[in-house]
């Protein structure tokens, strides 16, 4: 009887928020966001380890909770509860419904990520969580948040592609997707090392590990406290968890461990630099610091991870510590955010974070504009090429006094992606 009750609680933890996310359902309940976390609270309280297999779902997945997961579940539950309490639903009923739906979908995603037992289930739920979180980020509609959301999305998509390739490699090597078995197989020297690279890149992007932290600082800059809390409980914690679960520990890539350690050290140094130049007692920079705290924490973890990559026995000995460490860190950080006074006023118009390295053409365009402005007044005439599809745009500039015409091919972000792809293909071809 007890086992059955525990099993029900286990899968209710994930199904209940999913059900509630349907707008017509959650509008009938009071406090839907709090209501959704109740099974999860129950699950944390259960003393035993429970697991539950679902062989007919996807490639055969299941849910399970064990000691390590319980640590993180506890932290997550508390943070989500707090976020639910301080999040202020907007005045209109309709948009409040939608934001609750997004909220609940993200919750489902993150709980699912936490509780699934295999890689494919993890990937599916993390996709749900990721896109749900994107929705939450841009829900408020301010320009800075939109930009932050876009950055997040770019990183998310690239990370998902990397993780998909990693999954393919696992499928190529073995048929088992459970964490331990997969890790065991991929740790073997005969399997492809590309898996390791893909996992590292994917989760580094998702967890905003240095130097991929841009979306995190942008998001923290302009979001409300609730979103900040969810950031911690959602993407960051879950991605770190994923890293722990997916990472293979191989003997043969010594130098990778070194690189990871170096990156971790750089992260800590960078955060320290920011800390000292910002001034913690100045109210306006407070939010900025919190992001850097996360970055420094993940940097610390990178240091540890790098060490483990160089010396696999360390992993066996100390990996169990990481779970409680993560949960304690997230709890304390959330506490910090909660206790700061809400100073969210006008978002900073100029974000000092550098534009994406890949966006070379944006820079070129800015430079071009500057030079044109320097060159005097110019008249702009736009000529559209490929009329039928309205795709490429040629802007023709005509200098007013001299009548000289200068033509530029002006591209937008879509073309940038294509050029990026071409660059990628060329590099790949060169590499092969």
């Amino acid at each position, binding site marked *: 009887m007890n086992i059955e009750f525990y099993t029900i609680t286990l899968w209710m933890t994930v199904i209940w928020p999913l059900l509630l996310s349907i707008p017509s359902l959650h509008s009938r309940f009071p406090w839907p966001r709090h209501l959704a976390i109740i099974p999860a609270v129950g699950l944390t309280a259960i003393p035993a380890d429970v697991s539950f297999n679902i062989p*007919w779902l996807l490639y055969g997945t299941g849910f399970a909770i064990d000691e390590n997961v319980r640590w993180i579940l506890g932290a997550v539950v508390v943070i989500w509860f707090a976020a639910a309490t301080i999040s202020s639903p907007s005045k209109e009923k309709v948009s409040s419904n*939608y934001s609750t739906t997004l909220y609940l979908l993200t919750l489902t995603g993150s709980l699912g990520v936490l509780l699934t037992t295999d890689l494919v289930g993890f990937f599916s739920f993390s996709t749900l969580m990721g896109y749900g979180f994107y929705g939450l980020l841009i829900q408020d509609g301010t320009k800075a948040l939109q930009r932050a959301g876009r950055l997040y999305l770019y990183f998310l*998509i690239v990370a998902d592609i990397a993780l998909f*390739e990693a999954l393919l490699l696992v*499928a190529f090597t073995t048929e088992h997707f459970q964490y331990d078995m997969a890790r065991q197989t991929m740790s073997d020297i005969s399997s492809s090392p590309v898996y390791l690279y893909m996992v590292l890149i994917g989760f580094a992007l998702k967890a905003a590990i240095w130097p991929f932290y841009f979306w995190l600082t942008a998001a923290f800059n302009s979001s409300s406290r609730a979103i900040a809390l969810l950031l911690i409980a959602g993407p960051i914690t879950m991605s770190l968890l994923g890293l722990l679960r997916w990472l293979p520990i191989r003997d043969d890539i010594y130098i990778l461990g070194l690189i990871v350690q170096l990156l971790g050290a750089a992260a800590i140094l960078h955060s320290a630099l920011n800390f000292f130049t910002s001034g913690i007692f100045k109210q306006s920079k407070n939010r900025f610091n919190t992001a850097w705290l996360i970055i420094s924490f993940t940097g610390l973890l990178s240091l540890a991870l790098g060490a483990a990559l160089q010396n696999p026995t360390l992993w066996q000995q100390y990996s169990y510590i990481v779970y409680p460490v993560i949960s304690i860190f997230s709890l304390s950080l959330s506490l910090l955010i909660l206790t700061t006074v809400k100073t969210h006023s006008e978002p900073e118009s100029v974000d000092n974070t550098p534009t994406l390295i890949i966006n070379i053409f944006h820079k070129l365009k800015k430079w071009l504009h500057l030079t044109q402005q320097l060159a005097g007044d110019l008249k702009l005439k736009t000529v559209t090429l490929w009329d039928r599809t309205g795709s490429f745009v040629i802007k023709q500039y005509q200098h007013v006094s001299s009548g000289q015409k200068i033509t530029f091919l002006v591209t937008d972000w879509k073309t940038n992606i294509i050029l990026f792809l071409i660059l990628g293909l060329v590099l790949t071809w060169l590499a092969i």
Partner: protein
Amino acid sequence: MNWNDWVPLLVVISSLLPGLIIFGLAEDKVRARVMLNLFGALAKLALVSLMLWGVYQGYHYETRLPLLPNLDLVLRAGPLALLFVSLSTILWLVTTVYAIGYLENSPHRSRFFGFFSLCVTATVGVALAGNLITFLLFYELLTLATYPLIVHRGTEEARQAGKTYLRYTISGGALLLIGTVWLYSITGTLEFTPKGFLSNIGEQHYPALISIFALLITGLGVKAALVPLHGWLPLAMIAPAPVSALLHAVAVVKAGAFGIIRVVYDVFGVEFSAGLGVLTPLAWVAAFTIIYGSVRALFQDDLKRRLAYSTISQVSYIALGVAIAGPIATIGGVVHLVHQGLMKITLFFCAGNLAETLGIHKISEMNGVGRRMPWTMAAFTIGAFGMIGAPPIAGFISKWYLGLGALNAEQSWVIFVLAGSSLLNAAYFLPILHRAWFMPLPESWPNEHHFGNKETAWALLLPPLVTAAMALAAGLLVTLPFSPLEWAKLISVREFYQP
């Protein structure tokens, strides 16, 4: 006479007869028309279910009628045929319901539904064809049946679109004809056999066989919209939305892709083709089409055009899966036939809903549509995420198997193509979703119709929800015995492993 011998023919006739009767109905006999349409669709569904059950039990269903000396008209229910026939039948039923709602109060409905039924007859014939000449017959019939649907509206633009469509498809048909006759003159048979029927041909014919392959694939590639034979597809968007839905998800484009599968597996045989060296160019063309279609889609503002280019890109996944020549890639290519059909038809249904209810044709007009039509956009979201390859929707499964197949066949460059395609898909689908869900509503819609307090008519709302649910189920429940994936595995086993 064995009763089983007539079932395939009955499946074909079950939409031909209602179609012919509908032609004769007067415009205002709405109920009779609806009854006939639904009766035909349900009858076909019943017959196809009978065949499925029968094949599972071990029966054979084959109709043979003499056409030429030594060449028969053959309709046979094998696994691949049944896959395509089931897809066509189910989607025809759904599209019929949608079309009834969409074309309410439109002129010339009898004519429309008559040709619609002919179109499905031809598609089912293509699916059940047991040899290349039967395939050719129904393939050309498909061209003839779809032309009146494209020019249905009767405007000058429609006529021009029809003209372009014909230029491409009739030329493609001519190439297919030359290839078929040539093949027949060399081999003396055209029956579809697993692993192909060319293994006994002497080596002196190999150059001819390569040319025949090129001819056949080019002829089929017109309908399958391989670049540079894809020019007709965006123009054909002028047709009403149910036509676009059916054409792009089920009938024309899939018939071309299905033909490519048939030619490579049941005429030439995969190993033989690989030996001839014709699969590599096919893979390149398919890969190029995948990228090209997605790139062109990025720059479209018209919603249906963007979906058209997306179709061009997605159907080449099937060709790519075929060209990689491994059992797992086969699974990926064949299962994508079904998955892409489900997802694409959802997207087109939603696009049609937007046009019908709110007068929206362009993406720039779609701000905030998610609040006005949440269920439609929810279905659209599922379809879009499936196209991007997000789990657990069906598209993820096909991309999985294609990538895995590429790894198994040691063609890792395909992974990059697939990754690039996912990236591009995200680039052109996510902005649509963003606009729909997160942008503020405009003051007024271009051309709004109200349907009481529902967001749109039931006949327009249910079909996309049904197909979106099917796409989701096809992804979530892949391991169940009747899922498209298990079917595709069966087909792959037959082609590669059974003697």
